[in-house]
Structures are given as structure tokens and as C-alpha cells.
């Protein structure tokens, strides 16, 4: 991980673009009314997803939340099947049953996005307990938001992970808002990380829009966690370019704040860095590839058949 060969970086750049492109296409499909329901776009937060997963291996696990498309793709999820899920097709990650907030792919260690704010924290803790009991050396990375940090499950789960010294990284994407509520209204403190000490846990605040800062923090953490030192908390400061969900006009934040954050776009940051090592042509190619993969994903979703209702009721049980 530590020495960055250009090809690898290009692939991470492509993956960030893939996420951005995925979310932007989705927005259009919702706008056209070709997809209904709702979605929580993660544009602007691509570096947390890709940076964190870049520091994990295939045998590691991730739990996610409602804003999980980026996490899924970053962990190696197939954009085709995710797009199909959003179109409600049989080929979707969850066969169309889950939709945007409810996808899991155990084959890549993606233990599920989650429609319940804070719901993923105990699940990540339980997965880490299983790893410890099974004496494997995997780690679990739990993505959650600043808002989720005020759910009781945060407190209960982090405490259990700490007393049992479980291999889990609690990774908070602090994008400064929980839906419409600014961090300062939900917290009496400056950072979520202030709470790490309450669980005798290491905690650090990092720049969530810098792929390298995220990746390096997570790989260092993963090393400590794998070594059996117990959980840790990483708080990545970031910002969603979009609204909370489809129906959000963002009246609760200023256009100036948004503009300032757009100057700190994780993808632009990555590109600037890449230009030092890669040729512009390579970079453009990565950009074309990303767009192309999303075209494929859309085509795949559109061609896919709707789910079959036959046997739906029986599928509630493992028999």
C-alpha cells in the first residue's frame, strides 16, 4: 500500500469517478421519474469510501449506512448490479427487494447498507466478535455518519468492541450535517472523536476529502486493530455536494459554504496529485472508462428483467 505505483492510483481515481458518475446518473433517472423511491447521494464523499477501502483487503469487511452506494462500489461491489437494484430489477444486488438503502454482498465482505441510522454499529461489532472467535485476522470497517453517533447503538456497540478488544474500525464520515441539522446543534463538542477517550480508544480527525490521508489513516488503524489492540475511531471531515436525499433544497446551509467545499473536491484533489505522476492521457482514459462502466451499468439495468413474484413468500425462511 505505502508505495503508490501510478497504475494503482489511477484505478482508485477511476473508482472515485465511478461513484461520482453513478450518483449523478441516478439523480437524472430520479428527475426523469425513471426510478422512484429515494436515494442518498454521496457525491463529494468519494475519498472516504475509496480511501478507506483501499486500505482493506478482500477478506476484510465493511458495514455501511443509508448513504452507501460509494461504500459498496469502493469495497468492490458491481455497479451493474447496484444500478439494477435501483431500477428494481431481478439482477439487482438484493434482487430488487432492498433498493438503495438495503444492499449486501457477502462475497466481497460488504455486510450491508442500512436504512436505520446507527443500525450498522452493533452489526459491525458482532462481525468483529465472530472474527475474533474464529481467530481470523480480518478487520471490520464500520461506516457511519455524524448523526448516527448520537444513537444509543453507537455507545453500546463501541463499548462492547472496546472491552472485548475487537478488530473493528469505527469510521465516521462527518459531513457536518445530519439531514438538515448542523453538527453544532446535535453535539456539545467540537468533534465526534472527543468521545473516543470514553472508550479508551484511539481517535483521530482526518481530512476526508484527501484520498491519501484517508487511506493512510485506515491502513495504520487496520494494522493496530489487527494486532489485537482493540477498536479505534476515525473521524473523516467531508461534505456532501448534494442534498440529503432527493427532496432536499439545502436551505439549512449557505451557497458560500458549498462553494468553499467544492474547491476541496476529493476527485479534483486526487486528479491534481495524479498529474504529478500520470500522463494527462492516462487520466482522461480513466475518466472515459468510468463513464463507460456506468453506461454499461445502465444498459445492464435496463435490459434486466423485473423480479419474479413466484415463491416470494417462502423465501422468508431458510429451509
Amino acid at each position, binding site marked *: 500500500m505505502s508505495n503508490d505505483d501510478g497504475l494503482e492510483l489511477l484505478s482508485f481515481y477511476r473508482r472515485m469517478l465511478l461513484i461520482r458518475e453513478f450518483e449523478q446518473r441516478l439523480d437524472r433517472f430520479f428527475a426523469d421519474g425513471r426510478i422512484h423511491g429515494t436515494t442518498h447521494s454521496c457525491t463529494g464523499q468519494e475519498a472516504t469510501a475509496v480511501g478507506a477501502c483501499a486500505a482493506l483487503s478482500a477478506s476484510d469487511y465493511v458495514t455501511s449506512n443509508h448513504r452507501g452506494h460509494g461504500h459498496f462500489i469502493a469495497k468492490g461491489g458491481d455497479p451493474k448490479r447496484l444500478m439494477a437494484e435501483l431500477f428494481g430489477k431481478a439482477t439487482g444486488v438484493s434482487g430488487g427487494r432492498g433498493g438503495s438503502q438495503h444492499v449486501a454482498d457477502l462475497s466481497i465482505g460488504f455486510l450491508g447498507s442500512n436504512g*436505520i441510522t446507527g443500525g450498522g454499529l452493533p452489526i459491525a461489532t458482532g462481525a468483529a466478535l465472530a472474527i475474533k472467535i474464529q481467530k481470523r485476522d480480518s478487520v471490520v470497517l464500520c461506516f457511519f455518519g455524524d448523526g448516527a453517533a448520537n444513537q444509543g447503538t453507537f455507545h453500546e456497540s463501541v463499548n462492547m468492541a472496546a472491552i472485548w478488544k475487537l478488530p473493528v474500525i469505527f469510521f465516521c464520515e462527518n459531513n457536518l450535517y445530519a439531514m438538515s441539522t448542523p453538527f453544532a446543534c446535535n453535539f456539545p463538542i467540537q468533534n465526534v472523536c472527543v468521545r473516543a477517550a470514553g472508550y479508551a480508544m484511539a481517535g483521530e480527525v482526518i481530512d476526508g476529502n484527501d484520498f491519501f490521508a484517508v487511506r493512510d489513516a485506515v491502513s495504520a488503524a487496520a494494522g493496530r486493530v489487527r494486532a489485537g489492540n482493540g477498536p479505534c475511531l476515525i473521524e473523516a471531515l467531508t461534505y456532501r455536494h448534494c442534498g440529503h436525499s432527493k427532496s432536499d433544497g439545502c436551505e439549512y446551509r449557505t451557497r458560500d459554504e458549498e462553494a468553499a467545499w467544492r474547491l476541496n473536491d476529493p476527485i479534483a484533489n486526487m486528479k491534481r496529485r495524479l498529474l504529478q505522476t500520470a500522463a494527462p492521457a492516462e487520466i482522461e482514459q480513466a475518466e472515459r472508462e468510468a463513464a463507460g462502466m456506468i453506461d454499461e451499468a445502465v444498459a445492464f439495468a435496463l435490459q434486466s428483467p423485473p423480479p419474479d413474484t413466484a415463491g416470494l413468500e417462502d423465501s422468508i425462511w431458510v429451509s
Partner: protein
Amino acid sequence: MAEIFYSQAIRDALREELLRDERVFLLGEDIAGYGGAFRITRGLVEEFGPERIRNTPISENSIVGVGVGAAMLGLRPVIEIMFMDFITLAIDQLFNHAAKFRFMFGEQVRLPMVIRTPGGGRRGYGPTHSQSLETLFISMPGIKIVAPATPHDAKGLLKSAIRDDNPVLFVENKTLYGMRGEVPDGDYTVPIGKASVLREGRDITLISYSQMVHECIKAADALAADGVFAEVIDVRSLNPLDMDTLCESVQKTGRVVIAEEGHRTGGVSAEIGFRLFESLHYYLDAPIKRVAAKDVPVPAAPVLEKYVLPDWTNVLQAAHEILAEN
């Protein structure tokens, strides 16, 4: 009389009660500026300020507990749980605290508290954002439950709920927010515990509440086209249940369909149906049928969601099956 949206009717009731009684205040996630996920409380913070339209962190169980504590000291909290699915987090404060305090503490306390929350699917939101969980509450003594189907009842029942000295679960419905209906001018209330007969009929009784009422009306229209006259009853209050109104109708028609959007097994229909079977056994010309969601989570994909959730066609089919039984 003015024609307004169901969402507006709720907002008007909240506003008028906030004006009427300074002990009333609202508590919930993103209810202030944002107006809540469905914008029901939009505009109220500008008029009443952030102390009375109070945003909370994401902490459902303790939000309800905070309401209980505030109510014990004489305030009248109206809490919004953003989606009914999230009330699962607050069941302890609701069942072991709010529901029990008055009885358990020897009738010392009053807990005037309302929990507003939208249930129901048909929006493609998926399994954790589409549930109808009101049936969980009917087995817990101490919490009243209302589930209005029209703007008129939404406003009138919410006012009754806010003025009630007991905890009340006020079940809204996402697909009804955009529905328009006539609402009287000025102050009025709809009593908790009274069903309403929306359409009189002699051949069969269609019983439901909330969104399914409108599916029953559609089914009744279709039946009328075949010369079958269905009586359509909106239960409105699930606790207490107005069995008198239901029994009166069933004694007349002898045939019953009960419809709800929640899961078939263990639903509200089982309780209403059992009581009708029990007390009107000898009046029934055919077994009661219930129309409800299939016993699986509510899927996100439109074709699956439509398959799982009941609509007027299921009500109509059940009615036909019953009418077929001589």
C-alpha cells in the same frame, strides 16, 4: 369549508393547538427548519421558535423518554418519529414507561403526549421505510391509537389527541399527505374511539382505516356497479375500538371484509375480526375475510411492492368470495 391537503390539516392542527395551549410543544428530528422528512411542520419554527419546535439528535428511544419526563411535569409534547419503522427503537420508553406510568404509579400521573408517525409503503422506499406497525400497539394497554384517512379526520383527531391526557399514537400515512379533502373552518375535534360510516350499504361491510379506507371505497364503487351495496366503515381509532358501530353494520349486512396495509398475520384485522366473530357468530352469513400485506418485508422494487401490499382489487376479490358463499 375549505379543501386542503392531509399534510396541511395536520400542520393546521399543530399550529392551532400551539396557539391555544402554551404547554404544547413539538419534539423530533429535523422538524424545525426542514419541517421533517415530509415537511409537515414546515413554517412552524418561524412562528413559534426553536424552543417549542425543538429539533433533536437522532435518538428515538430517548426522544420519547424526554417526552414522558416533560409530560410528567405538565407539558404536552407532540413527538414526530420520522418514519413509523423507527418507532422500533422507542418501544421500551413507549411500552414500559409511557403506557404504564399512570396505572403503575397508582393514577398519580397524567401523560398527555402524542407520537405522530407516518406508516405505509407504495413509495418504493424499501423494507425499513414502508412498514405499518400499528398492530404492535394494540396489545399494549395504556396507549391510544388513531389512524385518520382524511384531512378532516386528521385535523380533528390530532386536536383530540393533543388535548387527551393519555399517550396517543397518531398514525399518519405517506401516500395520504398529498390527498385533498374538505375541512370545516375554525376549531373542531373528532372524538377518539368513534368509527365513521363513510358509505351506507346493506350487502357487505368493508372495514378499514388509514390509506386502505380509500381502497375500500374504490372496491365499493366497483361492487356498486354490479348492484352490490357495500357499507364502508373507517375505524379511525384502533384503541379504543368502536365495536358498537362495527357490530351494528355487520348485524345488517352479515358479511365482512377487514382491510389493513400491515402484515396479514397478527394484524389489527385479527383483533377486530375475532371480536366480530365472537359477538356476531350467528349473524354472519359467511366467514369474515381479511385483506392485508403478505407476510414478508415490503420490497423496494415496484412490481414486488405492488405484489406484497394489498389494494382495492384484493378487497374486491375478497368481497366477491364472500358474496359467492350463499
